[in-house]
């Protein structure tokens, strides 16, 4: 018999995230694609000294109203609660927003470290980690602060820098539908960072709009095969 992966609530699904854990959080930055129910559950659960790997650091509830008028919770809540020691991502704070996002306030007060990674390099580092690779050479960042301290290599006359893989203890993922085995399909641009992160963590926890029995998802349309998924929880929209 297959392992039981279905959890009854976001809180149950991530109860064992421990202090000091590295946690990938899917999504792009704003509302679509963020596992908001898992993020708020993690804020209630209270694990501390977390390293968060995500594309964006979130804007917090107040600034989120500029993106979606009714507002929404995002990764910002984890900085507000002082649960994060390090953030790895491409857009910790947004230059187009006022400097009041929780991550920006936390950084300016010296409470967190930030590792800034170009967005494509972030995705590829996660894919490398997921696929068991030792890293890759990319031209992105050559001649910028990103190359500092990294191995450089000329390949066919072009300069590249070595980027290393990223993996995590946990990944918090948003998908549209899952079957009870953990096969996932996504909706629209809510796909973004979710599939690569789902593959790169020791424990992958997914919130979905709809949970269905095996056989209901078109096998041709499955984006994330169930082997990568450990826990699934259905949430109401």
């Amino acid at each position, binding site marked *: 018999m297959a392992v039981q992966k279905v959890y009854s609530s976001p809180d149950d699904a991530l109860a064992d995230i421990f202090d000091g854990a590295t946690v990938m959080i899917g999504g792009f930055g704003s509302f679509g*694609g963020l596992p908001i129910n898992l993020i708020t559950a993690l804020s209630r659960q209270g694990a501390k000294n977390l390293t968060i790997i995500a594309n964006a650091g979130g804007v917090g509830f107040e600034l989120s109203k500029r993106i979606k008028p009714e507002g929404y919770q995002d990764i910002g809540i984890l900085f507000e609660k002082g649960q994060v020691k390090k953030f790895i*991502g491409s857009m910790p704070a947004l230059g187009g927003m006022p*400097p009041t996002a929780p991550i920006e306030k936390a950084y300016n007060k010296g409470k967190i470290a930030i590792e800034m990674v170009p*967005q494509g390099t972030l995705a590829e580092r996660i894919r490398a980690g997921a696929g068991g690779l030792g890293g890759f050479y990319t031209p992105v960042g050559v001649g910028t602060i990103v190359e500092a301290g990294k191995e450089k290599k000329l390949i066919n006359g072009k300069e590249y820098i070595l980027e290393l893989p990223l993996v995590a203890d946990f990944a918090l993922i948003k998908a549209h539908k899952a079957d009870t085995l953990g096969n996932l399909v996504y*909706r*629209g641009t809510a796909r973004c960072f979710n599939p690569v992160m789902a593959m790169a963590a020791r424990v992958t926890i997914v919130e979905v709009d709809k949970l269905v029995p095996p056989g209901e998802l078109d096998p041709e349309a499955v984006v994330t095969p169930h082997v990568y998924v450990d826990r699934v929880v259905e949430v109401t929209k």
Partner: protein
Amino acid sequence: MKMRLDEQVVALRAAREFEDGSVVNLGYGMPALCANLIPEGRTIFFQSENGILGYGSLATDEEKDYELINASDQPVTPLAGMCFFDSAASFDMIRGGHIDIVVLGAYQVSAKGDLANWGRPDRPATGMGGGMDLATGAKKVIVTMLHTTKEGKPRIVKECTYPITARQCVALIVTDLAVIEVSKQGLVLKEIAPGWTVEEVQALTEPRLAVAADLKEITL
């Protein structure tokens, strides 16, 4: 004060560079306006790094779907033939040279076409997003920006003082005063805003501008 072009007009001028059938990525701010300003009769495939190819215009309030957004967090409209993919695949597309044009905003562009568009000295927590990947990988980089800072200082400079996004990547600069091409010989003033002289634009531009033999007024 002399009239400068407004953001819509700058975006409209940039969008005229989109050839029929091209794949175009639009950066945050002024560039994103280009989605609504495609020259008539041309089909443009807009790619956005969050994993979408072939979206339409920016969505109205009634059309908003937050699972159908561009990389500036703006809901967009679906078009027939649109497709979705994950972030890793999206940046394969970008780094691999499958994007014809990217339009990006900038704090500064240098005489050699170095781009500085992400880091602000007063905002150390802001990041580069996909800007470095796009500026490195797209076949052509067009910058849209205001010609000067709020204090009236040139944004087109001899050497960038802001953090670099990518070196020698910019091909064309469209500002509220001018259209300037980055060539191997240096910056070439191709078009100028109505009512402005070459001398006036040069005075607000740090490197020396060569003037194109066929210098034109910016028309739309």
